[in-house]
């Protein structure tokens, strides 16, 4: 298995959030986690990315144990991409500088090439010098995605990626995101409270309630013509 989560628990002082979660993922799989607010979806992502430390449990990603009872790899060394709910694009950096941010160890030429390739992938070649506030919600989302994908993470986590997008645009952007993730063959976990988002994007859906998995199903899509 590419990703293996085993008995993962997390609690804030006096408030347990995740209870003994166990699930696996295959390479390139897109998993959607749905649940009401407070169900622990976002905390799960933060724990997987290394932004929070689990109380117990084990996390394996791409054949490596990144967290268990004895040690936890910090977020900056874990190689797990994260697309934040509000994208958290750095407002003082241009689109290109945002995308290049995680490529600080890459040589200059290769970095530029990677940024160009990603800009092309998200169809925003002409936007390299723009600042985040000069972009629409959908464009910001694509840049956030490109930024997270730039350092070629082992997996990608997306926290409510459609919460800032107008309903009329949502459908197109969902399809776009699904195609980008598939194109990059990126193992991804997407957190949402919208079942339609989950079914449209993911290969599998997990329903979280009170920090426990209460339902799991594979999404069957009818082929489009």
């Amino acid at each position, binding site marked *: 298995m590419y990703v293996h989560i085993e008995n993962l628990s997390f609690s804030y002082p006096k408030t347990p959030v995740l209870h003994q979660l166990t699930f696996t993922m295959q390479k390139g799989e897109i998993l959607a986690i749905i649940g009401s607010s407070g169900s622990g979806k976002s905390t799960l992502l933060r724990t997987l*990315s*290394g*932004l929070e430390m689990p109380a117990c449990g084990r996390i394996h990603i791409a054949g490596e144990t990144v967290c268990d009872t004895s040690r936890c790899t*910090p*977020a*900056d*060394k*874990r*190689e*797990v*991409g*994260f697309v*934040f*709910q*509000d*994208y*958290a*694009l*750095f*407002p*003082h950096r241009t689109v290109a500088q945002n995308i290049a*941010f*995680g490529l*600080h*160890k890459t040589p200059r030429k290769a970095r530029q090439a990677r940024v160009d390739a990603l800009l092309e992938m998200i169809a925003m070649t002409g936007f390299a010098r723009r*600042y*985040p*506030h000069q972009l629409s919600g959908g464009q910001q989302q694509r840049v956030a995605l490109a*930024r*997270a994908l*730039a*350092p070629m993470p082992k997996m990608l986590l997306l926290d409510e990626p459609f919460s800032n997008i107008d309903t009329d645009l949502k459908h197109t952007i969902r399809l776009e995101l699904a195609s980008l993730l598939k194109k990059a063959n990126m193992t991804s976990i997407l957190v949402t409270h919208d079942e339609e988002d989950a079914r449209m994007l993911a290969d599998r859906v997990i329903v979280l309630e009170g920090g426990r998995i209460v339902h799991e199903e594979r999404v069957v899509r009818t082929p489009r013509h």
Partner: protein
Amino acid sequence: MKRRINHDGPLFSLFALIAGLAIIVPLLFILRHLFEPSTDAWRHIRQIWLLAYIRNTSVMIFWTAFGTALIGTYAAVLTTRYTFFGVRVLSWMLVLPLAVPAYIAGYVYADMLSYTGTVTRFLRLVSLPQLLQPMTMAGAVFIFVFTLYPYVYLFVRAALKRQSAAYAESALTLGVGPFRAFFLVVLPLLRPALIGGVFLVVLETLNDYGLVAYFNIRVFSFAIFNAWFSFGEVVTAIRLSAVLLIMVFVILVLERVLRGHRRYTVHVKGRVIAARPLRGLARVVHPFCLWLILGFGFLFPTMQLMHYAVLTWRNTLNMTLFYNFMNTLTIALGSTALIVVIALMLANFGRFRPKGWKRAWLKATTLGYAIPGAVIAIAVNLFFITVDRQLYPLYRWLNPASPVLVLSMSLGMLVFAYILRFMAIGYNSIEAGYDKLGETFTEAAYTLNHRKLSTLLKIDVPLLKSSLFAAAVIVFIDVVKELPLTLILRPANYDTLASRIYEYASDEMIQDTGVASLILIMMSALLIYALSGPKKRGRSAHVRPY
């Protein structure tokens, strides 16, 4: 074309117009006198001293800005991002140096480090030499840095508290370590706050007269006073003021340019970064440094003043001091009340996102804060003398024995100058309150058939209570501490605590400043406590919300 409903009643428009005129016209007096024929004194100053004034002033503001930026940011980061023993107390106490006017700190440090001073005597006792020379440019910068850093501290602290954790966290998930993330993401996002704080520090430094005069540092405010008082050279004083105003203008432009076109306030929801405990040696070193900063800015000068007070209270705690205290209290309360009321009316006039001339007019009414006290004093003085001359026939009609100068010999001139100088503080604080409040409550009142004034009194004022309180406190503290305006514009035989302290210091009676200085500092310190002390955290964000 989109049209906005005009919410401004005629009363408020007229009021804004008059307030604006009252503030702008005196400043124009400087321009009028600028083109009078130059004098020998001016030619002498231009050839020999002008470059030195520019150089000294620039050196002084550069190092003060640098020092306050460093210390203010350091203190703000430590008290918001880390937990350690005493952090809660320190986080508000670090604002206290604002209660210590630079000139008082200057007198105290100069005395402490003099041959008979506390520090030198102690060093002699342990057979160590005293190598520090306080009455130098470096000494003045040191005092400015440790008494003015709270401006930067407050701005950066408020910005850090607002900054979403998502920025630093996304840097981490992109493989950038916490240290680099701080310098690449957290710090650049603080730039507007940092510049805002440093800008105020620079304006305060330019405004100072008491410290530079005592240390004999030839900067602009010192030169303007000298030209005006020692040589009676109005034209020279005005020309020096004009050069100083050009410097202020350059700084204003620099501030705009430094802020740049980039937007730093993209709204990102989510938590702010939780404070982490300091570990290892840092647990001792950083709190020690913070206490030392507080020591230099507040504790050491205050302790020394207490010692002076113990030595001299029998001579200085008398009825004269009581009158000085009452003068300070009444003029500060009166000016504060006037400023808050005018600022409220102006902010109310400008609250529905003003554009064009209206915006420019409102900006102009808050110009005073950028203009050093010495310049305002000259402008107001010239303005009042002209008004007196115009009104002389009226005075004579009322009282045939009336002198020519009536208004310019009254307390009204000083109060007017305070209003001109500190309007920006009141206005900005209340405007920030209005921004937070939004427009809905007021619009709801309008739809319920309330007029503008009734809405202001019944809805806005109660909801703006904390902003009004913050505005009043900050203005009050500034008026109490103000020296250059008070020195030039007070009527004969009228002394406030600040002017009394200045006179003691001018007569080299530093120890006699003890009781008066302590009263002045404690008044301000108590108000700072009321504003940003531990139980009123919600209000602390209002402190100078520019």
